[in-house]
Every structure is written in structure tokens, then in C-alpha cells.
């Protein structure tokens, strides 16, 4: 009796989730494990044969100065983007829940960039930085706009950050708006009656109650910006002279262009571990600060 119910439950489980489980295994788990396996080989992405090289690829990763430099560039890009995305998104959400006129239209407007794919977005902004801003600079005599943002290493990474913020802020804003709307009215009224207004109410009442929203938004920005590839490819393609090549792109170049698949894959594993550690730590830390109402 018990056994048959177990079989039945297993059957239901497979019927409802079998297909997605199969897909999940095929496109995520198996490639991941196979990729991990390849980090111990010297496969060149083309050959039919490869030999085992032990931990050699990992040693190469940690002595590859270029990868380490690009990893630092990536960290800087992620840190600045994550903070700016959230600050902008939170500010937008705050303003667009305060009852200003046309707020629904504005919400939609800010959300639209997220509907455009990273590749298209990159090309649009490449045109803006290289052609539109430079023309404005020349027409109005603004020196710092006369040359493209994308041809100077310091400014090109800022161009990446600007576009990232533009892309994600609207999406995160929606999550924050949900957070704002979800704060119980009675708590807010109690705060008002107690004489907490403006910033005091924001910092002492609103923000502590919105920690779950921050948690989700931080997780989204961290994991997505660490893995940025499409925007990187279409906006700068690493230019000028490789200074804006982020870690994900370096991995790709190493595996497919330099044809050192094992090394590229080992770099991907290192990147995965770092991203997982940072994201999970962030979630765990913030989880402790969540307030139950």
C-alpha cells in the first residue's frame, strides 16, 4: 500500500515536473558537470581527443595576469553598477509611489529598457556615445563630449555602467514599487501619528520594512552584472584595447578564440564560485535584517 502510493507520488512528480527536470538536467546540470570535467583536460574545443592535465588549468588561471586584471575591472563594474542600479531604482520607486501625475505612464517608460535585449541596447548606446553625444559636444563646444566615451578606458567602463543602470533600474523599480505598496498602512499611519515624517520615516520605518525587496534586487543585480556578456560585446567589445573586457567575455575569448577550452572553463568555474559566494553571503546577511510585521 505504502509502496504503491510512493510510486504514485513519484509518477505525479514526474508527470508535472519531468519535462522541466529533463530540460534542466540537459541544459544546466549535465553541461555544468561536463564543463567541470573539462577543466582537468587540455581540450582545444575542436580536437576529438584530449589528455588530462590535472590542476594545471587552475594554476594557469591564477597566474594569468590579464584574467586577474579583468576580474578587478569586473568587480569595480559590478560594485558601482549594483549600488547605482539600486539607488536609482529605489528613488524612482519612491517618487512614483508618491502619487505624482502620470506615474503609471512613467513607470511603464522606465521599465521599457528592460524589454530591449542587451545586444540591441548596446548598439543603440554605441550609436549614442559615438555619434549623438559627440555631435552635441561639437555643436555646443563642450570639450568632454567631443570625443566618444567608448575610446577612453576610464570613460568606456562608465559608459558600460550608465547603460547597465539604464537597463536594470526600471526592472528593479517595479520590485521596489511592490515593496512600497506592500508596507501595511497601519504602520505608516502609526509612524505619522508618532510624528515621524520625511527622511526619518523613510529610514526608520519604510526601509527596514523593505529589506526583502533590497535582498531580491541586490541578488538580481549582483548575479546579472557579474555575468554581463551581451552588453559588453555590443557596446564596447572590450575596447579600447581590451580595457573594458569583463570576466565573462574573457572566459569566452579564452575558450573559443585562443582555443584553450580547459583554461577558459576553469576561469568560468572560478567566476561561478566567486559569484555564488558573494550572492549567497549577501542574501544571508540581509536575511537577518528582515523585519517581521
Amino acid at each position, binding site marked *: 500500500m505504502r509502496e504503491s502510493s510512493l510510486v504514485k507520488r513519484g509518477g505525479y512528480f514526474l508527470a508535472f515536473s519531468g519535462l522541466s527536470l529533463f530540460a534542466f538536467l540537459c541544459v544546466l546540470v549535465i553541461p555544468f558537470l561536463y564543463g567541470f570535467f573539462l577543466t582537468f583536460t587540455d581540450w582545444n574545443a*575542436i580536437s576529438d581527443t584530449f589528455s588530462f592535465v590535472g590542476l594545471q588549468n587552475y594554476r594557469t588561471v591564477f597566474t594569468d595576469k590579464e584574467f586577474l586584471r579583468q576580474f578587478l575591472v569586473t568587480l569595480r563594474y559590478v560594485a558601482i553598477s549594483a549600488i547605482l542600479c539600486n539607488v536609482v531604482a529605489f528613488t524612482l520607486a519612491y517618487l512614483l509611489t508618491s502619487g505624482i501625475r502620470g506615474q503609471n505612464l512613467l513607470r511603464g517608460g522606465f521599465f521599457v529598457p528592460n524589454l530591449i535585449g542587451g545586444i540591441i541596447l548596446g548598439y543603440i548606446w554605441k550609436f549614442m556615445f559615438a555619434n549623438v553625444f559627440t555631435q552635441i559636444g561639437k555643436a555646443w563646444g563642450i570639450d568632454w563630449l567631443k570625443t*566618444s566615451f567608448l575610446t577612453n578606458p576610464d570613460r568606456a567602463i562608465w559608459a558600460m555602467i550608465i547603460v547597465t543602470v539604464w537597463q536594470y533600474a526600471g526592472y528593479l523599480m517595479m520590485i521596489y514599487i511592490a515593496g512600497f505598496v506592500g508596507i501595511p498602512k497601519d504602520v505608516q499611519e502609526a509612524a505619522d501619528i508618532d510624528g515621524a515624517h520625511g527622511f526619518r520615516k523613510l529610514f526608520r520605518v519604510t526601509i527596514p520594512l523593505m529589506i526583502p525587496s533590497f535582498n531580491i534586487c541586490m541578488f538580481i543585480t549582483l548575479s546579472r552584472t557579474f555575468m554581463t556578456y551581451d552588453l559588453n560585446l555590443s557596446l564596447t567589445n572590450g575596447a579600447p584595447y581590451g580595457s573594458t573586457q569583463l570576466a565573462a567575455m574573457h572566459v569566452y575569448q579564452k575558450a573559443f578564440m585562443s582555443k584553450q577550452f580547459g583554461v577558459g572553463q576553469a576561469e568560468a568555474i572560478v567566476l561561478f564560485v566567486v559569484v555564488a559566494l558573494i550572492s549567497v553571503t549577501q542574501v544571508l546577511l540581509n536575511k537577518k535584517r528582515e523585519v517581521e510585521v
Partner: protein
Amino acid sequence: MKNNRFFAFMLTLMLLTTMISVGATAEGDVKLTYYSTSAEVNAMFEEMFERYHEINPNVTIELIPTGVGMGQQEQLQSLFASGNAPTFMNIDPANILDYQDKLMVFDEDTEWFKYLNPDAIEAGRMDGLVYGLPFSTQGYALCYNKRVVESVIPDFDPASINTQDALRAFFETLDAAGVPPTMIHGANWSVGAHYLGLVYAVHGKDTASGLRFIESLIDGTMKIADDPLFQGYMDTYDLLVKYNYRKDDPLVGDINADDQAFANGECATFFMGDWMWTIIGTLESKDLEYGFIPVPWSNDPTAFGNTEVVVSMPKVMCIEVTQSTPEQQAAAMEVLEWMLTSAEGQEYFIQAGFSMPYNNVREDASYNSMTQAIAEYSAVGKTINIGCFTYLTGDAWAKTGDMMLKYTVGAIDRAELAEEIDAFWKTQTKQ
């Protein structure tokens, strides 16, 4: 029970789908796939294959197209890895190295190979064996806009620029007349593969000379800074940088904007190749007459490189042997013969503007002025062979090109550039 039946059904469905996709063809029919990395002429290949099917109804050729700037290498790698390798394909000569053990070694005694020019058969040679057959010749050097140059120097003769001093004087004359003398395309492939490539290639007419030099950089027995060709070409490069039309913002690297500026006569010369006609040819307003000036590296007018332009065969046709059947390989060989040496096949390439390195191309074929100018250098043997780059890994030009870009904007000086190039080569392994 119901569940089991459901799964049995699903499994059967999956198996059936797989079987159908593998497909079966009628007796005697051959189905071939062709992978093209010449993305700009996908339509041409499609028309050719349709026509071939008309005259040979038992052979069907499916084109696997790629997009300009799309990951062609990765797509080909995944086709091979997934067991769907194309029967035949066109790839860069540099890729022969990667796929060497999977490609057919062509028998040089094949009857119709007599139509190939001697240097054409060399384009697909690797380790003494022929793996690829080219279908086009391209070239690069300093391209000049005849109208613009002749407005300052009437009856200009490109052969008069055979030394560095002559080039300097030429630029000074243009500059004094208010014509921006030259333009550098600020992208790593142009300054890395093409410009810096000259340093390796001019070591000798044959591929081996350039390769020996590269190998001496790899094993550290040579420092690039000690090489007179490097110093000479960098002196010329300084000249190009000084008179660069894009010097206010040299790294924009927008090929459409640069081609357009050149076609409109905004500058007199442009370090680029005749392939830019594929863009310039489509522009509404453009100058039609162009020529090529060699890039001189010294003041000796007889030195190799000072009077030559680079001519290369950028794509070669190859046949796959590990995943295709002997029947498919034989059919692919026949298709190649038709495409490359029959009058009907060649016409498609001629119409698309390719100058074919075959000696039976109809003599009255006419090309645009850029291709024509390169063909004239080729006809008198005034060419530099860039073949040594065939033996390099895919990222050499990108990495060293990025270093050249840093040098272009003054982020590093020449000594630092030389050090970075040396350091890069030391990380490479000898092929």
C-alpha cells in the same frame, strides 16, 4: 499505469523525431552541407547551389550561412562537436591548422588544379600538404583617392612613393594644401593583423621566413625591438599617426564612417584593403577611382616591402573527411570543380566582385578600381605574402592589435609596445 503509457508515448515521440531528423535520402541522391564564413555573399552561394542542383538533380547542397561579425568560429566548432560537421566549407587559411586532421588533403595532380595560379595553391598549404582552395584575391596597403590626390599633385604616380622620405614629403605636400593626408582605422584587426603583420611578412617572400621570425620571438632568441623592420614600420606608423584624419579621437574604429569619409574624399589616403569596396560600392555619393601606394619602411627604394602591397587569399574551400561519406566527399569535389573552374561557376564570383586566382577566368572580366589596382601589383609580382599569419592562434592579431591601439593614443611608448609584443609571443607555443 496511465503515467507509464504517457511516458512510453513521449519516448516514442522523441525517438521518432530523432529518426526523422536524421533523414533518409533516395538511392543515388547525395545531400551536402556547405558552411560559409563569407557572410557577405550568402545569397551568391545559395544561387550557385540552386543552379548546381538544376544541372545535377541528384546533388542537393544546403548552405549553412553565418552573419557578418557573428561567432563563425564558435558555430563551426559546435557543428563539429555535435557530429553535424559540414561536408565542405570556406574558412580562413588560419583555421586549417585547427581542423587539419579533419580535412581532405587535396591531390595536387588533380586534373583541374592546373587552372590554379601557383600562389593560389600555396594559400591552402599547411605542412607541405594542400587542404584548401582559394576563390578570391584581396590586397591592402595605403589606398588613395585619385581625385583628391590629383587635385594637389596632378599626374601623381604611386610608384614614386618608394621610400619613407618620399611618403613624408607626399604627406607634407597634401597637408600644406589643406588636404588631410591619411587615415588609420582604429580597430585592432586593422593595426594588429594588417599593419603589424607587415613586420613579420616582409622578412621574406615565402611564408617560412615570417614564420621563422615569429618562432624566434616565441622562444625569446629575438626581441622585436632589435628588428630593423619593426623599427622601420613603426617610424612609418608614427607618420600615419601624425597625419591621421581621425587623430582627435583615433579609436572610434567605425568602419562605415571611415569608408564613407574616404569615399567622400575627406582624406587622401587610407590604410585599408580593396574589400572596403563592398561598403563603398553601395554608397550614394562616392569617388570611383582609387589606387594603392605601398607602405615604405626604409629609405632604400630597392628594399623588399617598399614597392609591394600585401596580397592574400582570405578564404579557402575545404572538404571534411571524418564525418562525411566517401560519396559525399566525391560529390563535394565535383561541386568545387564546377564552382572554381567552370565558366558558369566563375561567373558568380566575378559578378560578386571577386578577383579569382585562376588562370582560366575570362579575360574581359572587369572589377572596381581598387580590386583592379591590387590585381595590377599581383600581375607583376609586386606582392607581400602574409601567409605566416596562417600559423598563428586566433587571438594573436587581437592581442597585439590592442597594444598597437595603446601606442596609437600614446598610452605606451615604442619601447613599452615592443616589450608587450615580446611578452605576448612568449606566452604562445610553437606550432
